Structures are given as C-alpha cells and as structure tokens.
C-alpha cells in the first residue's frame, strides 16, 4: 500500500476514533443519570445532605442547573483537556489520582504482556510443530485450563503456592526501585500472563497448523528450503496476523485483568482505583477512568490495524467492508 494510502487510512481511522470516543463519552457522562437516585444524590455519594447550602454548592459545581446537553458539553470540554473534576471520595483532582496510580499498572501490564506473548508464541509454535504428540496435548490442556481460570483464581493459587507454602515471593506490596518492584510484581504478572498466554497459544497454534498445510509450504519444501526457513519465513510469517490479533486482545485483557489482580494482591494501581471508586460510587473518578481506559483500548486497536498492514501486503483498506 502506498504511503499516501496509509496516511489516508490513518486519517480515516482517526476520524472513526473521534466518533467512537464521542459515543463512549456520551455513555460515560450519562452514568451520572443512569445511577440510581438523582444526580445530586449521586454526587453526594451517600453523605447525609441535610443543609441546602451543600446541595446548592454541588448543583453549582457540576452545573446541574443547566440542561442535559449543556452539562454534557461542559463536561466534554473538560474531558478533552483531561479535566474530569475532583474525586468525591478524596477531593483530589481525578487526573492527578490517575497519574499517581498509573505507573504501577503500566509496569504490571507490560510485564504481564511480555510474559504472555513470549510463553504463548513459543508454546503455540511448539505445539503446532509437534502436532498430536503428548507435548501438544500438554500445551493445549494448559491453554484450556488457563483460559478457564480467572485471573484472581490464578493469583490466589500462585499466592498460596509461592508465598504461603514456599515463601519464594512476597505476598503483598509493590516494592521500591525497579528490581524490587520487578520482584514484587512477578506473581501478579504471572497471574495475568497465564490467562493471556492461553489465548495466544490457541491462536498461534491454529495459525501455524493452518499455514503448515498450505500449498506454499509443500512447494517450499519441494524446493529444498531448510526446515527452519519453512517454519519461520513461511509458516510463522503467515500465522502472524492471528498472533498480532491475539496480542491486541491480550493487551486489552491486561487492563481488565489489572483490576482483578490488583485487588487480589492489594496493589494500589489504576484497576484497584477503579474498583474502589465504583464501590464508593465516586462518579467523577469512574467517569475519568472509564474515558482513559476506553481511549487506551481504542488506540491499541488502531495500532493493531496499522501493524497488519506491515505484515501482509495483501491487506487493503476500503470503506465499509470488514
């Protein structure tokens, strides 16, 4: 695809992204009105609202006296500047809270993602090459159990095995400095990686098996190419699209999984913040987090689509076809 085509594609996708984000933001803003009770009560978050002064202050601060559309416009204007207001629970600005907590979650997500891809791709290739042997069976069984085990269950089992029984890893805490943090976050990252790699194994294995039975593999072998070249340049390269698809899913999964794993291991990341805010009905915080997380996921999907382009020259971009 030409450079110009790529630019056009990215521009079109960015436009779609803007539309999508607008839709999402509308939904996120509406949470205020979807929540049980009046907006005012929601924003009081269960505090006894006896005096009218507090109530008026709330109405003022959140523009509750304006029409719904005006409220949305004001909120969205702030959201564009990443200003989501202040947390009801702590009073600190939403953005500051998210910034403070995101380092841990990013560390954890990247760590888990790297583990999941590394294990998933190599196990997937291995099981496709050793198709229908006991190694294949073992790997497939691992991927089925991995896909069936929620992150928090894996986390609790890991905690029990490595922190309680063997005492090899710390049970809680996030550690100081890179190495110590690495050390502390290993169990949570492995818990995330087990679920993620299960998906990668499945898609890699299926992609490799599919590619290995293609005519072009037979033709490559008929020309005397080495087994390694056939495996990598032919089978794996052609299986790369499902692997990248899996990668994008795993990356999104890391965000969802972070919520669960941070609660399990009592880590103060973005995920834990979301759960705390949801349980406390801290709506400004929930709205801010929802927007940030949705944006990240949508961006991951966009990057994946662009990545496809570099993998497969046949992929063309046209409107309206999926």
């Amino acid at each position, binding site marked *: 695809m030409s450079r110009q085509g790529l630019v056009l594609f990215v521009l079109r996708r960015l436009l779609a992204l803007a539309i999508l984000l607008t839709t999402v933001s509308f939904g996120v803003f509406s949470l205020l009105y979807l929540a049980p009770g009046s907006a005012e009560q929601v924003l009081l978050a269960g505090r006894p609202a006896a005096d009218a002064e507090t109530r008026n202050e709330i109405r003022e601060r959140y523009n509750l006296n304006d029409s719904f559309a005006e409220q949305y416009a004001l909120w969205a204007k702030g959201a564009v500047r990443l200003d989501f207001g202040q947390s009801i629970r702590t009073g600190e600005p939403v953005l500051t809270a998210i910034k403070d907590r995101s380092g841990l979650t990013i560390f954890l997500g990247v760590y888990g993602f790297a583990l999941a891809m590394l294990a998933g791709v190599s196990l997937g290739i291995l099981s496709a090459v050793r198709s229908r042997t006991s190694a294949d069976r073992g790997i497939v069984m691992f991927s089925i159990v991995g896909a069936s085990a929620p992150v928090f269950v894996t986390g609790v089992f890991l905690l029990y095995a490595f922190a309680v029984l063997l005492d090899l890893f710390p049970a809680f805490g996030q550690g100081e400095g890179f190495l110590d943090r690495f050390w502390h976050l290993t169990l949570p990252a492995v818990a995330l990686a087990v679920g993620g790699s299960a998906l990668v194994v499945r898609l890699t294995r299926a992609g490799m098996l599919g590619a290995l*039975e293609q005519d*072009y593999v*037979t*033709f490559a072998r*008929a020309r005397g*190419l080495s087994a390694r070249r056939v495996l990598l340049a032919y089978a794996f390269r052609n299986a790369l699209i499902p692997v990248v698809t899996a990668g994008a899913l795993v990356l999104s999964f890391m965000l969802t999984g972070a919520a669960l794993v941070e609660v399990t291991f009592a880590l103060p990341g973005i995920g834990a913040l979301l759960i705390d805010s949801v349980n406390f009905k801290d709506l400004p915080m929930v709205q801010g987090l929802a927007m940030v997380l949705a944006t990240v996921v949508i961006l991951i999907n966009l990057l994946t689509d662009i990545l496809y382009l570099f993998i497969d020259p046949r992929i063309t971009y046209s409107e309206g076809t999926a």
Partner: protein
Amino acid sequence: MTAVLESRARSLPRQAILETRGLAIESRIGGRRRTIVCDLDLSVAAGETVGVVGESGSGKSMTARALIGLLPQGLSARGSISYAGRELLQLPERELARVRGSEIGLILQDPFTMLNPLLRCGRHITEVLERGDARGVSRRARRAEAVRRLAEVGIAEAVDRYPFELSGGMRQRVAIAAALAGDPAVLIADEPSTALDATTQKEILALLKSLQEARGMGLVLITHDLRVAFAICDRICVLYAGSLLETGGTAALEVEPLHPYTLGLLLSEPPGDRRLAELAAIPGVVPSPDDVAEVCSFSPRCPWAQPICRAGRPPLEPVAPGRLSACRRIDEIRSEMRQRHATVVQPAPPRDTPAVAAPLVEVELVEKVFGDTSSRRVQESVVALAGVSLEIGPHESVGLVGESGSGKTTLARCLVGLETPTSGRISIDGIDATDYDALSTADRRRLRRTVQVVFQDPYSSLNPVRSVGSTLREAIELYNPRSARHARQVDALLEQVGLPASYAVRKPIALSGGERQRVAIARALAVKPRLIVCDEPVSALDVSVQAQILNLLSSLREELGVGYLFITHDLPVVRQVVDRVYVLYRGEIVESGPVDEVIGAPRHPYTIRLVDSMPRSSPDWLAASAPPGAP
C-alpha cells in the same frame, strides 16, 4: 515436423533417471488403512516428457508427492523410488531435502496458493539460490540471477511484485521459475495448467515444453486431460484407481489405445472439431482401489469384462513394441475396440435449424458494474457486463462461451434474479425480468417456473444436512402445495435424471459428484421450467462422468423440450450440446452464430485464439503460440 517426430523417437530408449518399482502408497487415518496406489512402475529419462493421466481418485497427485518425498501426514510409501541410482525411500529427511529442488522439482496445480503470499516473487528464487554453499554470493548478484531466471519464464518485471498482484498464469510462471531455481534434472508438474484459462493453459504448456527441451530435463506431467498429454508428452501412462492400466508412446497410444479404459477415456472426451450424435460415456464411477484390489480395476465398468477379468489382478504386460497393457483380453477384443473407436467418432448429421419463433428470453444491452458506482471511486468498480444483448428461443439450446472474468456467470445470475443489472433490459416470456425485486409476486412466481439454474460445483449445490428426497420435495411443494403425491413425484424426478428411487433417502455425502449434479438437475426440473441456465455444469466432473451428464442433458431436451443456456469455457463441450453460441470477452459479445460455424470458422481474433488453444496432438500446436496478452 519430422524433426520433432525424430526427437520423440530418439528419446525412447534412454536410461531412466527417476524410476519407481512396485511403488505403493497407503493412508492410515484413524486406524483405517486405505490403498491409494499399488504396484506402480514409472520411469522418466533425461530429456523425456512422460504423462501420467488419470481421473480423480486415480492416485496421480499422491504419486507426484511420493516421488519427491512429500506425502501428507498419515500417508506412507513402500517399494522403490530410485533417482540416479540412489534409493529415495531409504534416504534420511536431511539428505532428501538436498535432493528436492536441485535434483527433482515439483510444481502444483493451483498458482493461487502455491506461492508465499508475503514474499515478493524474486525472493522465491533467491531463497533457493541461498541454500547450502552459495551464501557468499552478494545480494545484488542474487537479485540479478533472480531477474535472469524470471526472464527465462518471460516475466522479469515480476521480480519486485507480490504474488497477489499477478494473474494466475503469471503466478504459475513465477512458480515454474522458482521450482527450476535449483536446476533440477527432473520436474514433476502436477496439473500445472488445470486451474488456468484455456488460452493461458496453452502458454504454460508451451513454456514447460520449451524449458524441458532447452534444459534436457526429464518432465513428469500429471494430468486428467488426455488431450493435454497427447499435445506435449512423449510417453503416456494411464492410471486408474491406483493402478497402471496402460503405457505407451503418445502417437501409437492415440491412434490405438490398448486398454478398454483408455479407449473409454478417449471416447468420452468431446472432440472439438465435430459434433457427435452421442458421447461414449463410461457408466458408473471410479471405484476405490481397495474394492478392486483382487480384480482388474476397470472390470466393474468395462463393456468387455468376462469372469477371467475378475480372477486376480492382471499384470502390466507387453502387448506390442513399446506398449504395455493390463488387459488380459486385449488380444481377443482388439479388433472390436478398433471398430468401436471408428464408429463412435463419426460426426452426427448437421442439426436442423429450429423454426424461427418469438424468443423466450431477450437480453438487451445489459450492463452490470460491481463495486461502488459513485463517481468518487470509479477505479474500484469492475465492469462485468458492458452492454450484452442476446436471445434464446423456446426449446433452444444456446451456448455462452468465455474465460474467467468474461462476465458469463454474471449474466446467468442476472437472468435468474440473483443479480440486478445496472442498466439494460431483460425480458423473459413477456415479463420484464430486469429487476426481480420490483415484480409482483405472481410474476415472480411465473418467472421462477420458467427459468431455473444448475451450478458448477456439485459439492455445494445440495444442502449437506438434507436428504435428496427432502430437497426435491421442497421444490415440488413450493408450487404445488396441495398435491398429495409428492413421494411419487420425487421418484419420477429421480428416474428422469437416471437415479434409482432409493436415492431419495440419501444425504448428499453418500453421492458422487456426477450423482449430485443429477440431483441438482432434478431439483431444477421439479418446477417444470422451460429454460435451464447451466453454469459450467460439467467442468468440475471427470471426463467419463461429464459425458454421462452431457448425454442426460440432451435426452432431457428431447423428452421435455426444455431449453438450455449453457455457460462454459470449454469449446468441445459446448459444441456437443448447443445449437447457437455467443462468445463473451471482457463483458462484451464478440461473436455469435450457429455453433459449428463459430467454432469451425471463427472470425473475431479472440474466438480464433480460443479455438486455437484447444489442445491438439499435432506437434505444431504448441509452436503456434500467440504472444501473451493479445486478444
């Protein structure tokens, strides 16, 4: 001409370079053992072209794979395959990999799946050059070599392009260059031209032949098409249900086949130069090798079969100089076979021109453009039909001939309402059938009962989860909901297409390709249409079965007076079944008229090229190759 004959004669006694002795191939899947090929003796010498001819189920493709040691998982070979004195079946995989590509090459049937979609064409060649000790060569030198190799097959410009950017014929050229990049002494070509259009097929065959001669290479051509084998092979081996039935020099074998199967195959091949009163179909279907392990494998379908044919497997024995045959009775029946050969090929008397009547179908200036037709994206739209007009009279059989991309299938789909033309007018039996959706229900029902369709692919034409009977019953009930005699009508339909009534309870899986196509015809007949649009109805079938279906179509026409619009790429086939023919080229009709005139004396350059690309055994056929790309 004489020079060619001499070169063919000279090539016969040469030393075999690749040879099999008692080769057997078996599959073992899920604990079930099945024979694919048994007791096969083949050989090819340097500079020789050997044709292995067989229908589907003969085991020819697996033989090709076995020769290069690439049988799919679950299949295994026994016996002996020797190459230049080395026993390949004993060779460890490592050494076998060294033989592949540099001693024995292989090209496969489908040019669309054979090349790695993610590698540029030139890379397919340089990666072969990079094997082993050749690593020291510079990148530029390798690229230059790749360009030279691609130039050898006539498409040097493809070096930096991806396979998906090329047409099927061009991809097949790249594949040939890639297969020859290691300069093998023997090339095995498994149906190299079958997936291509007739005109491209001829180019690829000519290229293979010229490469083989220039390189003094041995060529094993695996094909289902006797005409192709006759055109380029020195020697022919006829494979049937896993065993060799006959081998011999091409010229002698064409003049006089010495096995009833070969004769049957030859006779069921519709000739391109005349129309026969009836094609000589071989009854029945190809058996599985295990069912005929202890008898002559052709005996269940052979008109000359006697009890002696079922007493053990007949060996392949010399019957004439340079000729081997596995027929025990060949000496007794030779004169009968000769007689039959002579009578069957007699041309039929010319057809009476049907009386002029008001046409049943009128197509006027129909255009069909696919894709976005808005002005913004003109370059992305595809013009399938560019103003086509034609007429079909009642009871008439009309042919529509064209290659892939000519728009012939689009026109068929427009006629039966599966597509709506972009512009133009279609009128059927006085009803404006241009847009089926715009019709009243009554008119639409009448149209449906006037025109029906039979598609190409027998494997998808029947719903796999429903029995034959319920498929037919559904079609009958649709227009006769109150009739109570559906079961009897189903039986009658099955009988009409030559199937026993017991087939009503069968699922499509239990049917052969030819039988499925018969059911598809019966389904079309269920509503008693006046015209059946047949979209390549026999092109997916074996020749012997193809003849059965063509005969069925002609007899149905005589019995029921149903007319056909017969859509095909195959000129010999169209000559046997239609009265008039239209030639479609890139969405336009370039020539039309009575079929004998159009094929016998074509006028438009494209028709001339099409007629010229019908395989002929005369040695000048391949030489007289038009330059690629010319219309």
